[in-house]
């Protein structure tokens, strides 16, 4: 990992056109400004990680997913009959 010391209003440049600037340094956090080309996705790590875990749990193979779909459909149909 590359480690930098940056002061307020100082920045680093990553690759072609991505800039990360230190806007404010507080006791509990650092406020960063990121400038990047509009097609570059920028995510907060913890949100991305949460979705990564959810995707890993949701992923399956074709056959088992088809079985799950059939089971959920049956449950819904049974529920609909129960209510009518």
């Amino acid at each position, binding site marked *: 990992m590359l480690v930098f010391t940056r002061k307020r209003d100082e920045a680093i440049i990553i690759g072609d056109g991505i800039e990360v600037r230190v806007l404010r340094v507080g006791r509990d956090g650092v406020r960063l400004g990121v400038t990047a080309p*509009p*097609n*570059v*996705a*920028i*995510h*907060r790590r913890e*949100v*991305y*990680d*949460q*979705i*990564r*875990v*959810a*995707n*890993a*749990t*949701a*992923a*399956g*193979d*074709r056959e088992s*997913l*088809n079985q*799950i*779909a059939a089971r*959920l*459909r049956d*449950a*819904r149909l049974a*529920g*609909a009959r129960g209510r009518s």
Partner: protein
Amino acid sequence: MTPLSLANTVITFDEGLPGFESARRFVVVASPALEPFALVQAADEGEPSFLAIEPRLVDPSYASPLADSDLLRLGAEQKTPLLWLVLITMHPDGSATVNLKAPIVINPGTMRGLQLVAPDSPYLIDHPLPPV
């Protein structure tokens, strides 16, 4: 825009999905036999598939805003009709939840898709799948 209208076309996800960054090509499999569900199925060997449903069938008022960067990545504009799908997770107790927080968004016009990673989404990552 329904999953059926996209059946069997390869959709390109330039960044893959979180956790499956190498999975770039997916096919949406929809059929009357699957309805109201659809499969978001990897087009390449060894990559994962997902069971999905349109979010409006879970929450009729569902709306997640897209940032300009999202639209750009989809090759879409604000008014472009898009297909929205949310992924279903089955739990060991037999219950099912849907990830309303990070929907799959597909632009049928460009055949490009992405999974929305919205930091301020008010929706749950594990919203219970209602029975109807």
